[in-house]
C-alpha cells in the first residue's frame, strides 16, 4: 500500500510542479536558516572536555564590599579570585587537583638575526594545570609543584610557537626570551585545543587559537609580568602591588573533584573559608555566597553566546514558523480541493486512516525534499558563517548529530505541517461530496 500511496503522492505533486517547487523551497529555506543557527549555537555551547567536564569545578568567592556598585557594561569582578584567596585555596589542597591561572601577553624576542620581536598570548598557571586538564605533550612535560615554589624560570610552549622557534628540532632545554627574562623550555604541548577555551576569564577570546606558552604563576607574580585579562580593583591599590592585593581580582581557579561527596565537601570548605574571612573582616558578604560551579554551568554563567547570534537563531526559527504556516495553509487548500477524489475513495471503502496515510505521505515527500534542500542551504549558511570575522567562525561545521538533526527537524516539521490538513481532509464525508460531482 505504501508504494501505491507514494505513487499517488508523486503524481499529485507533479500536477502542480511550480507550487510543489515553491513549497519545497519555502520549507528548505526555513530549515536551512534554522539549522545554520542551531549548529552555530551547538558548537558554541559544546562541551570542551567531554571526558573530564564532570569532574572540573570553578569555585566562586565574593570578596566584594557590600556597597560595591557594578558598572553597567563591565565584567563582574567576583568572577575572578584575588591572589591571597587563590593562594589559600591552593595551600588548603582540598581537591584532587587544583590550579590557579591568568592570561598572559608577552613580547617574544626570537634572538636570531633578521627576526623581529612579536607579542604572543599565553597563560600563567600552577603545576596541576597540565594534569588536571589532560594536556598532551609532544615533547617533555609540565613543571612540578617544586618549580612553582622555587619560582623557576621554566616555560611550556604551544606546538605552533615551538615550530616557529625551533623548526622541527627538539626544543627541550633551549632558552626563550619572553619580556625581559630568559626561560628554559621544559615541555611542548601537543594537539590540545579545547573549544571553547573554557578556563580563561570573560574578557578573553573564547574560541580559536589556544595559548602559545605557559609559565609558572609564582614566577609571573615574582617578576611582575603583564597580565592579559580583567584586573578589577575596589580598594586604593598602587600599581606595583596590585597583583598581590587582597582587593584586586584577576585569577581564574579550577579544581578537580572525583565524586559528589568530594563536591559537597569542597563546597562546605569554601563556605567555611568565606566565614573565616568574614570573621577576619575581609569579606562582607554572607558565607553562603560562595558557590561551586561545574564546568558546563560555569560556561552557562559566563554566557559565551553573543546576543546577535541568539537573535539570529530566533529570527531563523521565526522564519521557519512562517514557512510552516504557509505549508499548512497550502496543503490544506490542496487536499480540500481533492475532496471529490477523497470521497470517491471513501465511498469505495477506504478507511479514514487510509486517507490520512495517503495524504500524510504526500506531505512527508515535500518534507523530505525540503530537508534535503535545507541541508544544502544550511551548508551554504555555515560556509558564510565561517567567513565572518568572528572568533567562533572556524568552528561552524556540521557534525553527524547535527546532520541527522536537520533531517529529523525537516521530516518532523513537514509531517506536523501535513497532520492538520490530512486530518481535516480525511473527515470529508463520502456521500455529500459524491452528490456534487
Amino acid at each position: 500500500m505504501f508504494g501505491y500511496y507514494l505513487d499517488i503522492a508523486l503524481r499529485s505533486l507533479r500536477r502542480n510542479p511550480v507550487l510543489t517547487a515553491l513549497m519545497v523551497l519555502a520549507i528548505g529555506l526555513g530549515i536551512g536558516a534554522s539549522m545554520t543557527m542551531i549548529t552555530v549555537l551547538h558548537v558554541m555551547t559544546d562541551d570542551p572536555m567531554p571526558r573530564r567536564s564532570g569532574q572540573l569545578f570553578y569555585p566562586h568567592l565574593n570578596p566584594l564590599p557590600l556597597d560595591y556598585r557594578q558598572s553597567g557594561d563591565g565584567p563582574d569582578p567576583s568572577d575572578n579570585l584575588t591572589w591571597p584567596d587563590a593562594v589559600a585555596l591552593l595551600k588548603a589542597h582540598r581537591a584532587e587537583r587544583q590550579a590557579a591561572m591568568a592570561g598572559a601577553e608577552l613580547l617574544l624576542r626570537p634572538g636570531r638575526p633578521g627576526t623581529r620581536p612579536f607579542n604572543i598570548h599565553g597563560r600563567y598557571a600552577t603545576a596541576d594545570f597540565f594534569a588536571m586538564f589532560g594536556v598532551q605533550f609532544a615533547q617533555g612535560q609540565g613543571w612540578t609543584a617544586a618549580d612553582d615554589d622555587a619560582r623557576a624560570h621554566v616555560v611550556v610552549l604551544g606546538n605552533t610557537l615551538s615550530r616557529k622557534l625551533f623548526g622541527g628540532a627538539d626544543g627541550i632545554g633551549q632558552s626563550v626570551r619572553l619580556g625581559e627574562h630568559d626561560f628554559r623550555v621544559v615541555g611542548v604541548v601537543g594537539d590540545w585545543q579545547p573549544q571553547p577555551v573554557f578556563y580563561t576569564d570573560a574578557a578573553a577570546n573564547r574560541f580559536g587559537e589556544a595559548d602559545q606558552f605557559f609559565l609558572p604563576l609564582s614566577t609571573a607574580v615574582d617578576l611582575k609580568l603583564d597580565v592579559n585579562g580583567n584586573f578589577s580593583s575596589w580598594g586604593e591599590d598602587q600599581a606595583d602591588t596590585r597583583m598581590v592585593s587582597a582587593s584586586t581580582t584577576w585569577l581564574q581557579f579550577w579544581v578537580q573533584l572525583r565524586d559528589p561527596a568530594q563536591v559537597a565537601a569542597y563546597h562546605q570548605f569554601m563556605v567555611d573559608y568565606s566565614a573565616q574571612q568574614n570573621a577576619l573582616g575581609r569579606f562582607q558578604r554572607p558565607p553562603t555566597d560562595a558557590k561551586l560551579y561545574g564546568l558546563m554551568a560555569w560556561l552557562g554563567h559566563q554566557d559565551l553566546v553573543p546576543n546577535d547570534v541568539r537573535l539570529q537563531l530566533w529570527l531563523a526559527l521565526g522564519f521557519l514558523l512562517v514557512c510552516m504556516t504557509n505549508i499548512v495553509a497550502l496543503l490544506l487548500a490542496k487536499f480540500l480541493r481533492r475532496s471529490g477524489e477523497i470521497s470517491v475513495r471513501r465511498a469505495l471503502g477506504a478507511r479514514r486512516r487510509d486517507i490520512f496515510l495517503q495524504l500524510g505521505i504526500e506531505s512527508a515527500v515535500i518534507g523530505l525534499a525540503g530537508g534535503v534542500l535545507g541541508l544544502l542551504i544550511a551548508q551554504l549558511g555555515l560556509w558564510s558563517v565561517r567567513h565572518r570575522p568572528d572568533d567562533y567562525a572556524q568552528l561552524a561545521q556540521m557534525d553527524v548529530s547535527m546532520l541527522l538533526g536537520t533531517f529529523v527537524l525537516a521530516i518532523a516539521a513537514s509531517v506536523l505541517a501535513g497532520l492538520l490538513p490530512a486530518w481535516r481532509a480525511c473527515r470529508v464525508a463520502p456521500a455529500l461530496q459524491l452528490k456534487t460531482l
Partner: protein
Amino acid sequence: MQLRPILSSLRHHKLTALLLMLQVALTCAIVCNVVFMIANRVGQVTLPSGLAESELSMVQVIGIDKNENAQARHAADLAALRAIPGVTAAVAVDSLPLSRSDSSYGTCDSLETFIRAMAARSMEDNSGCVQPSVYSGTPGELAALGLKLVGGRDFLADEYAQAAPGWTVANVPSAIISRALAERLYHGRDALGRSLYMGGRPPMRVVGVVDTLLRPRLRTPDVNQYSVLVPSVPGDNEVTYVLRSTPKDRERVLAAAANALTGLDPDRLIPPDRMRTYAEMREQYFRHDTTMISLLLASALGLLFVTALGITGLANFWVQQRRRSIGIRRAIGASRGDILRYFQAENFLIVGGGIVLGMLLAFALNLILMQHYELPRLPLYYLPIGALLLWALGQLAVLGPALRAAAVPPVVATRSV
C-alpha cells in the same frame, strides 16, 4: 461591492483563511520589528564621529624599550611623518573615536557632586556626574582631526603637560568637551569657563566646545557623544599616529609612514592590522552590525516572499476550485471587473485580519526584544506603514490568480465538470 458573498464563502474555508491570516500576522509582526532593528543598526553604523574621516589614516606603534623617553621618541617620529609628501598634519594620540581603546573617568560639574558621587560609589545615577571618554594628544590634535569648534578656542601651547608614567592623562588646566556633554553637565547654560572635576584631579576649565566627538567604544545612544579632549601629551610607549592627507594619498602615506618609523627605530612593533585608514577602522568596528543588517534584510525579504507565495498559491487553488461558480456568475451578468474585484476584496479582508492580529503581535514581540536585546520601543508609525506594505503585497500577489479568474469564460457554466 458586496461583502456578504465573500464573507459567506470565507466561512466555508474557515481553517484555510485563518491559517493565511495567521501567516500574514506573523509576517507583519516579525517584519515590523526586523525593519525597526535594521533602522537602529543603520543609525549606529552611520553615526558621525566628528572627524574628517575620509582624510585620516593611522599607524599604531608599540615601543619595546620601557625606559625610553617616550616624548622625545614621539617628537622625532612626528617630525619624520610630517616630512612625508602629502601629509598635511600629523599628531600622536592615545585613542580615537571607534578605536575601541577607551579611558573614561567619573566627571562632575562641581566638587560637591563629585564627593557625593564618590561616596555613593556611582557616577551614573548622580545628576551632576557622568562618565565621559577622555582623549589626549599632542598639540594640533583639534585641527589635524578636523574637529569643529562651536565655541571657545583650541588649547594654548603652555597648557600641555605630559602624563606621569603609568597614568594616561596628566593634570592639566583646561579641557575641550563635546556639545552633548556640555548640555548634559551644564544644562545648556554656556559651558565655557566652567569647571570640570574629573577623577579626583584639580579642576579643569572648559575652554572650548566641539560639535561632535564620538566615544572610542559605543555605549547607549544617549551617552555615545560624551567625550573630553585634554591637552595631555601621551607619555606611553604605545601610541597612535594620525596622519591627514587627501583621500587618494592615504595608502601611499601609510606605506611611507611605516618605512619612516621603521627607519628611525627598527626595534619596535608596528602591528600590520593597526596600520589602516580611518574608513577601514570604522568598517571593522561596525562589521558585526553590517553583517547583521544584511541578515535582517535577507530575512525580511524572505518572509515577505514566502507570504506572497502563500497568498498566490492559495488564491490559485480557490480560483481553480471555483471555476464553475465564476462561470455562472459571469453568465448571469457579472463583468470581468466584478470577478477581479471579488478576489481582490477577499484578499483585502484576509490580509486586513492578519494585520490587526499582526500589530498586536508586533507589539508583544517588541516588548520581548526590549527586555532581552536592549531594543528601544517600536515607534507607532511603523504599524500603519507595515499594514500598507502588506496590503500592497497581498494585492500584488493575488493579481495573477484574480486576472485568471476574470478570464474564465461564461460558457464554463454550461459544462459539467
